[in-house]
Structures are given as structure tokens and as C-alpha cells.
């Protein structure tokens, strides 16, 4: 009973925290983008204001839509984004659901919000949303490949280095993959880091990979028919997903904690690590989302596929080869 209660309580706290961090990230992102474009930008609290306003507005269900699917999908997207968080360790805090899930599960869960978007898009019965939904599916297929490759190769490298349970997040947080590899492996991991930085905007549908929403072509694409509370829930889902995706990357590739450096233990350590963890999330988000989306134009959907499969796929293969060689040289094989 107690376990269930604490799990539920933890989930609620975590969801609120994630929404807060996610919206805050969005605010920072908009400010920095504005600054790089020589504009002033909105106040940091703007995303909060936006969501508040959306919740106060009417949700319109278009005549062509399938109402129950249309209304259900925002909730599914939010719920699944929060679900991802339950399996992730934040700093030295263990995941709420303990070691019940691993990397592979999270990989799958990360797809669900996008799927909810796709279904919601199809269910809204607008040609723009339909085209957007098709594009979202295509880009999912495109970025899933390099993402899966990079995740699995890291786990594999840990396994070779005789780390037990390499797919578990707790292991990942405790044993940094950077510590087990040699020089070649470091190069490989750096490549993976770049790869991850470029997959994140794809996963989050940001320029240059925002083809499913493509404001100028599709007028908002998937989300074109969503309004009011439904759109508000989608924005929350997007905020949480941003945190989840970037946290995922941070855990795999930048797993260090601050508390050992200061020799802290107990609650103090957890707090310091949590803050440090979110600082890392913010920094990663600035580099892989904000800067990228400011310096580029939008890709065509065919180009998205090409870029992910051939350029990043190629990079992924290079990383695999490097890590394999490294494993071989370091005497794991």
C-alpha cells in the first residue's frame, strides 16, 4: 500500500516538476532564439501564460473529426510523456518505478506521444493535418534508426566491459560509459553525442525537422485543428517530452553527478544532483535545439529521411566501428 501511495505521489510531483521544467525550457529557448535574432523576446514566463490562456479557451472539434479519438489523443500524449519520466533517474534520485524498465522500454515509450499526435492528426480530418500526420510517421521512421543504433551500441559497449545490467538506467547513471572506453571509444562517443544532439530536434519536431508542423506550408500541420484545452494539453505533453528526451540523452551520454565531487551524501546530494541534472538538460537543450533551430531553414520531408538515414546513419556506423575497435583493443572481446 505504502509503495503504491509513494509511487502515485512521486508521479504527481514528478509530473508537475517536469511540466514546470519543460515550460521553463521553452521560455529559455524562446528568449535565446530572440536574442540571437537581435530581438527582445517574450518574458521567461510566456509559455506558462500561453498554456494558461489555452486552458481558458474553448476546444473546437471540427465537423469532420472523430470526436473521441480527437479528444483522447492529447491526454494519451501527456500521459505517455509523463510515463517516460517514471523510468528515468534524475541525478542520484532513483527512478520512481525502480528498475522496472530499461532503455529499450523508454525508446518505445518515447514513440507514443508522436503516435498520439499522428492519430490525433488523422482524426481531425483536415487535409493539412493528414499531410502532417503522414510526415510525422515518416520522420519517426527516419530518426528512430540512428537513435536505436546509438542507444544499443552504448549498452553493448558497457556489456563488453563486463558491466552487469547494461540496459538499466541505474547502471548507466552509476557507470559512465566514458570511463570504460579507451581513446578510440572516446572519439566514437563524441560522434554519438553529436548524433544525439541532432536527433533531439527531430524527436521534438523543431526546425529544421519540423516538417510535420511546417507553419508556412501546412499552417501548423498535425495541430492545425486543435484549439483550447486540447492544444493546451498537447503543449504540456510537448514540454514534458522535451524534458524526457533530453534527460534520456543526458543519462546515456553525460551521466556525471556533482555530489561525489563535493563529497555530499543523503538528501543534500540528491538535491545538488537534481539541480545539476536539470542544468545539464538546459545546456543540452540550448545547443541541440535552440542553436540548431536558429541557424537553419526547414528541411523537406524527403531530405529529413536522407539526412537521418545517410548522414546520421553513416555517423552511427562510424561510431559503431570505433566502439567495436575500442572494445577489441581494450581487451573486452
Amino acid at each position, binding site marked *: 500500500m505504502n509503495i503504491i501511495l509513494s509511487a502515485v505521489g512521486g508521479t504527481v510531483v514528478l509530473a508537475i516538476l517536469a511540466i514546470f521544467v519543460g515550460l521553463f525550457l521553452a521560455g529559455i529557448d524562446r528568449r535565446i*532564439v530572440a536574442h*540571437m*535574432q*537581435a*530581438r527582445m523576446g517574450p518574458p521567461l514566463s510566456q509559455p506558462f501564460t500561453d498554456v494558461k490562456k489555452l486552458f481558458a479557451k474553448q476546444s473546437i472539434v471540427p465537423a469532420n473529426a472523430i470526436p473521441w479519438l480527437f479528444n483522447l489523443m492529447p491526454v494519451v500524449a501527456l500521459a505517455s510523456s509523463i510515463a517516460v519520466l517514471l523510468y528515468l533517474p534524475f541525478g542520484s534520485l532513483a527512478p520512481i518505478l525502480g528498475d522496472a524498465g530499461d532503455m529499450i522500454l523508454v525508446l518505445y515509450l518515447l514513440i507514443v506521444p508522436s503516435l498520439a499526435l499522428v492519430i490525433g492528426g*488523422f482524426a481531425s480530418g483536415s*487535409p*493539412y493535418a*493528414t*499531410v502532417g*500526420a*503522414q510526415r510525422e510517421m515518416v520522420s519517426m521512421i527516419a530518426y528512430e534508426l540512428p537513435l536505436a543504433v546509438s542507444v544499443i551500441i552504448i549498452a553493448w559497449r558497457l556489456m563488453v566491459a563486463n558491466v552487469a545490467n547494461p540496459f538499466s538506467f541505474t547502471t548507466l547513471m552509476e557507470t559512465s560509459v566514458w570511463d570504460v572506453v579507451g581513446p578510440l571509444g572516446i572519439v566514437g562517443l563524441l560522434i554519438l553525442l553529436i548524433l544525439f544532439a541532432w536527433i533531439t530536434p527531430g524527436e521534438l519536431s523543431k*526546425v*529544421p525537422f*519540423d*516538417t510535420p508542423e*511546417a*507553419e*508556412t*506550408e501546412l*499552417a*501548423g500541420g498535425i495541430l492545425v485543428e486543435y484549439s483550447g484545452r486540447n492544444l493546451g494539453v498537447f503543449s504540456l505533453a510537448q514540454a514534458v517530452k522535451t524534458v524526457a528526451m533530453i534527460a534520456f540523452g543526458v543519462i546515456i551520454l553525460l551521466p556525471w553527478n556533482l555530489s561525489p565531487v563535493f563529497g555530499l551524501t543523503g538528501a543534500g546530494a540528491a538535491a545538488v544532483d537534481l539541480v545539476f541534472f536539470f542544468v545539464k538538460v538546459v545546456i543540452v537543450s540550448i545547443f541541440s535545439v535552440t542553436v540548431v533551430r*536558429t*541557424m*537553419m*531553414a*526547414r*528541411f*523537406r*520531408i*524527403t*531530405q529529413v529521411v536522407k539526412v537521418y538515414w545517410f548522414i546520421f546513419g553513416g555517423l552511427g556506423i562510424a561510431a559503431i566501428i570505433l566502439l567495436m575497435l575500442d572494445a577489441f583493443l581494450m581487451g573486452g572481446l
Partner: protein
Amino acid sequence: MAGKAPYIVPVGPIHPALKEPVHIELTVVGEEVISADFTPGQTHRGIEWMGLSRNPVQIVHLTDRICGICGVTHSLSFARAVEQIADITVPERGDYVRTIIAEFERIQSHLLWAGVAAHELGFDTLFYLAWRVREEAMDAIEVITGNRVNYDIIQIGGTRRDITEDQHAKIRKCLNTYKDLFAKLKKLFLEDAVIKSRCVGTGLLSFETAMAYSAVGPTSRASGVTADLRVDYPYCAYGDLDIKPVIPTIYGSDVNGDTYDRIVVRIFEIAQSIEIIETCLDNMPQGPVIWEEKVAKILSACKKASGEAVGRHEAPRGEAVHYVVMDGAEAPIAWKVKASSYSNLHVWPIILKGAQLADIPVIVASVDPCLSCTDRVAVTDNGSTKIFTKEQLAKMSYEKSRRMMQ
């Protein structure tokens, strides 16, 4: 989703890709456009009709409002038409001031277009940058004319304001800023990997089609048509200048007639305009800028005039034509405006065919459409719209001409 079957994607009349209302209908299979059609006429304002109850001195400022970007284009074309009818000669200095302001207009219009094109590509940073540097030109224009957008500087017989010596410093500063900026603009627009990959080879308009559809301005020049009114039929101060039409070969590339070439042409026309303004500033003759200082005298000269004439000007988007008929009354009895975009829009169905859905906005924007100047007719009858055939239209215009001759 209904798989591969063609479905219709409407773009407009209100759509984020369009800055002005027009309706484009695309038949799409997958992501590919197999046919396109468009319906203008959503933003007709009846300006010509308003003109028929006003005298030319009033109309010349009304024309400034035909387009928010080509302010000087329409007033210049209209003034040139009236000047021919009333037999008015513009003093040389007036011609130079007209040229300078027209070229400033080209600079700001092309920068505005460049920003819009970048936005259509999803490149908002470049859009902000282009519009930010455009402010320089707007400021210079404000110094010369007293307003950023509605210049109101053209008068029948010349210009209303002179460019004085103390304005030169400000204008030169603006020109020098652009000279420094030009290399950067070239790099940002023409060397960006994504812009290149999305614009090269899309929206192809061949030389033959450009000729057959009478495309004008940068749209036609990007396809290798060396037509430029400033060179072919020099007017104002253009006769004194040594200019050549800008075609894509200027960037050392072949002429492909794609979206990329249209960017090239416009970016390099900015450089050309800077040069023209500099030369004009250096060589400005002394003297008055207007044929007659007293507006009342211009009015009475116009009132006496009768006849018909065509006034033309190479606007930023291509040749604009004003046709005016006067018969010794206050107001002209006929006034017809053909904006440059009118000629260019007709290539849309051709260049959109076969395009990817993603490229529609930038291809649509690549002809630099300006719809409120283009829309001349809207037939509405109690809410229902009618389409006239060519024969009907011809018959109606014969009748109208007969009425006018009586």
C-alpha cells in the same frame, strides 16, 4: 488516409504562406503536386474607380496606395502617362530624384522579398536579419520623402521634394552600409546548404515559358530573359546610366530558371541599385525638380489636356503599366493599372507542377506576388461570383470603347 489517390490541398485565400489573399488549389499525390490552379480577385479595392472621380493631382497620391511596397512605381507610371498627355517635360534634376527614389524602393522591396522567402523556407533568423537591414533603406527613404512607406514624392511634372546637400551624408551612409552588407547577404542567402538544397532545381521556369507567358522583372530575368525596361526603353535618368539587366550568370552559374536563380537575381539587383543611386547622386544636374512649383497651375494644365497615353516603369517586380485617357475634364475618363505581378502570377501553375508540397510556399513567393496591386476586377452579383469568358470580355470592352468614343 486515402493512400495515393489525388487529393486537393487548398492554399488560401488565408494561409500562413500567403501574405495577401489569393486562392491556390493544388492537386496532390503523396507529397507531389500534379496540378495547380489559382483564383485571384480576393482583394479588389476599386481604386481605378475612385480615380475616375478625382483629378490627376489627387490620383497621383492615390496611386501611392495601390501597393504598400511599390509606392513610387505606380505614381511614377501614372505621372508619366499624364505628363505625356498634357505635354509636360520633367526637369532633369526631377528625373534624377525620381530615379534615386525608385532604386531605393527596389532595394527595400528586394530585401523585404528576401525576408519573406527565408520565412517561407522556415528560416526565421534570416527573415529577421533581412528585415532588420531593410530598415536602413526605409530610413533613407524617410529622410528623402518624409514617410517610410507612402512616399508621395512624385508629382505630375517632377517631384515634390529635392534631395538637398545635407541629406547626402545620410544617404551615403546608408549606401555604404549596404555595400558592406552585400557580401554577407550573398553568403547567407546563396551559400546556405539548406536553402541551396531546397531552391536549386525547384520551381523551374524555362526561357521559352517565361517568354510565352510574358513574365516580367526578376522572374523573367532569372530564366535568362534579358528584358529590363530601364535598359530597353530608358526613361528618367536611366538613359544616362550604364546598366545591364541582371541575369543569373552574374553569380557565375548557368541560367536554370529555378527558385535559386530568382534569389540570385534579386540579391544582385540590390547591388546594382546601390551603384545606380551612387552614380545619380554624383551626377545630379542643378535646377528645379518640378516643371511648375504651383500645384494650381499643374491642375489647370491637366484640366486642359486631352488624349491617351501609357506610362511604364520597371518596378521591383517587373514592368508596371498605367493607361490613362483624359478629355479635357477634371478627372480622367479611363485609367487602367497593370501591376507587374499580373504578368508573373500566370506562371504559377507551370512552376508549381511537379513540386514537393514543402516547396510550395517558396515557389509561390519566388515570383514575388503582390496581389492587392494585381487584383483589378471582382464580379460579384448578390454574393455569387461569375466567370466571364474571353469572348464576353472582348464584347464588353468593345461596347465600353464605343461608349467612350461618343
